[in-house]
């Protein structure tokens, strides 16, 4: 193996793949067969973190950055004058296995520019996964990026070897997609997703009857949307995510704040800051939909189409629904306790456990790990709560913003990124 050449390719093709955020290793479970290499468990492991604070759990690379398309937001687009490179199937397999053996990664995330056509590209991606599974006996995690327009036959094969498949819809609105990626169309993206979704449903049915059905994309599908490249609002984004969760059974929708890398009059200028705070609020909303029982319509509505940048979406909801508070900690059901600002899933569970033993006070709440400086305005304790007098105060919002040190406010402050 020529290491210098391999190193050069790795640098180019990791650099080109880095903007894709949909690469956690969670949701897979593949037991190691006796004597083989690797397994993946449902929770996944982040093996390290980049200096931008994002988790690295997979070797995330492009097979090649040669591309026949010219999507405006993408560094690999055909009109961009950059160094091009391509891995052989063996090189990707070798890197994956050797990184995995040293416990650097949970597996592989392989994406690609489109060379020749969709099927040629997809076929090459599938070949990597197939070789890892069949020749190297590899049971670690494999995530393949499906190529829009790939045939059903190739998607079928991909799902047999990969744990997760994804197609990034990238631009939340159709009009935005037309503007920035004129050669792509939404239908070419949705068809492979539909195919996999049906396949997964069928797999689940067959599994009930026959025990030994080969796994079919066991970690499901995900997608990614770029935020801030076009002028969609947050309500549109959340609605699209909700649609994908409901109608395509997606495991995750990722949001990627647009990083201006290309000069193009259709795009925000190169000096535009990455909308990190907005991206963060979208993840918080997504979280509320998936784990806190909030509906998309509760988080935003047409009168308020953008997420509040000052307070997180849960607090924002509480401030708009003060009549539902205070919530009695001793008697309220779990779902309502989850809606108290400053109380997360774990703390809510602990509250429900601990209150069986004794009557809880604000001191207990502190010890259980709640963000009491926020929560205290929304809770009624059996022994009463002096902070409740603020609940009807028109300045409650100010009080909360002043008194809370949101961990995101500092980290994601848009101003900081200017320096």
């Amino acid at each position: 193996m020529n290491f210098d050449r391999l190193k050069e390719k790795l640098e180019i093709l990791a650099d080109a793949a880095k903007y894709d955020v949909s690469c956690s290793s969670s949701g897979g479970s593949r037991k190691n067969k006796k004597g083989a290499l690797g397994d993946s468990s449902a929770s996944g492991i982040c093996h390290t973190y980049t200096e931008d604070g994002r988790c690295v759990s997979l070797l995330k690379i492009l097979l090649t950055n040669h591309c026949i398309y010219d999507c405006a937001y993408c560094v690999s687009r055909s009109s961009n004058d950059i160094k091009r490179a391509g891995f052989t199937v063996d090189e990707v397999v070798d890197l994956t296995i050797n990184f995995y053996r040293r416990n650097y990664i949970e597996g592989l995330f392989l994406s690609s520019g489109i060379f020749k056509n969709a099927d040629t590209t997809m076929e090459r991606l599938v070949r990597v996964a197939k070789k890892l599974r069949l020749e190297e006996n590899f049971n670690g995690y494999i995530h393949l990026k499906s190529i829009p327009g790939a045939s059903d036959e190739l998607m079928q094969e991909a799902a047999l070897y990969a744990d997760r498949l994804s197609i990034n819809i990238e631009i939340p609105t159709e009009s935005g997609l037309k503007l920035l990626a004129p050669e792509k169309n939404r239908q070419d993206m949705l068809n492979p997703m539909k195919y996999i979704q049906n396949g997964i449903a069928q797999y689940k049915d067959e599994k009930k009857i026959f025990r030994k059905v080969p796994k079919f994309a066991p970690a499901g599908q995900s997608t990614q949307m770029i935020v801030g490249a076009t002028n969609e609002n947050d309500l549109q984004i959340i609605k699209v995510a909700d649609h994908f969760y409901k109608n395509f059974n997606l495991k995750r929708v990722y949001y990627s704040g647009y990083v201006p890398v290309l000069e193009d009059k259709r795009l925000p200028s190169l000096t535009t800051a990455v909308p990190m705070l907005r991206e963060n609020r979208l993840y918080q909303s997504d979280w509320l939909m998936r784990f806190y029982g909030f509906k998309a319509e509760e988080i935003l509505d047409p009168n308020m189409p953008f997420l509040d940048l000052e307070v997180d979406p849960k607090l924002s909801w509480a401030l708009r629904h003060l009549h539902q508070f205070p919530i009695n900690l001793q008697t309220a059901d779990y779902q309502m306790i989850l809606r108290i600002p400053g109380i997360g899933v774990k703390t809510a569970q602990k509250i429900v456990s601990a209150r069986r033993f004794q009557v809880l006070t604000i001191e207990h709440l502190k010890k259980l790990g709640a963000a009491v400086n926020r929560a205290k305005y929304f809770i009624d304790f059996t022994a009463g709560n002096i902070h409740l007098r603020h609940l009807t105060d028109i300045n409650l919002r100010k009080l909360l913003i002043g008194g809370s040190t949101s961990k995101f406010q500092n980290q994601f402050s848009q101003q900081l990124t200017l320096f």
Partner: protein
Amino acid sequence: MTTLLYDGSFDGLFTAIFEVFEYRYKDVEIVSRERFHQENIFAEIHEVITQNEKTERVLNKLEKNIGKSGIHELLKVYLSEDSELEQLILSAVKQSIQHPTENILQNYADNDMLKISKICKSVSRERHRMTAFVRFEKMQDDVFFAKIDPDFNVLPLIRKHFKNRYQDQKWMIYDLRRNYGILYDLENCDFFYPDEKLDLNKYQQKFHDEETQYQTLWQRYFTKTNIVERKNLKLHIQHVPRRYWKYLTEKN
């Protein structure tokens, strides 16, 4: 006040706890021999001899009350090497005997139980980090070797994870601070306790030929996958506290 001296082992600790009940001691402390300094010259000393049968009896009884997962939590408290570990575990056992129908560990309003839950959380976090931050280096004899130095004694908690994951390569994980490790030789996966500390000076000279090259590839990958425009060192350090950097190939 009676001081029960035990040998520092998990079994020894539970034998001691059994004897607290057996001799109906009211005012006791349990101390490992190694850590014991006699301060209170009027304290009565009770020497505990580890007896598996007594340990089993306590654990069986406990398992009925707090389940396997409860026992596992107490094991984590033991592995935390916390200075109060004996007192906390004793408190949990006492309370559990008093309230056999409840999982007493969930009484987070009790100070001792809350401390136990906090310790478990820290230990679990470090266990998880060790599954992430162990870095194997391939040696000339084809063994993948890793050295660790965790704050808590988590090696027993990660053995199964690595055993499941790496079945077709020989590997070894060595705890520098506690001077013991796990060795997997393609057949057995056992703890080993060397008489002397392993000498790791210049062990890089025994690297397999390709080792430094894969390390370089990994370092380059790590650098290139970062997005400079999103640089956020504060968040980075929150995820990878500096004390772990010494394990990490990409940080050296």
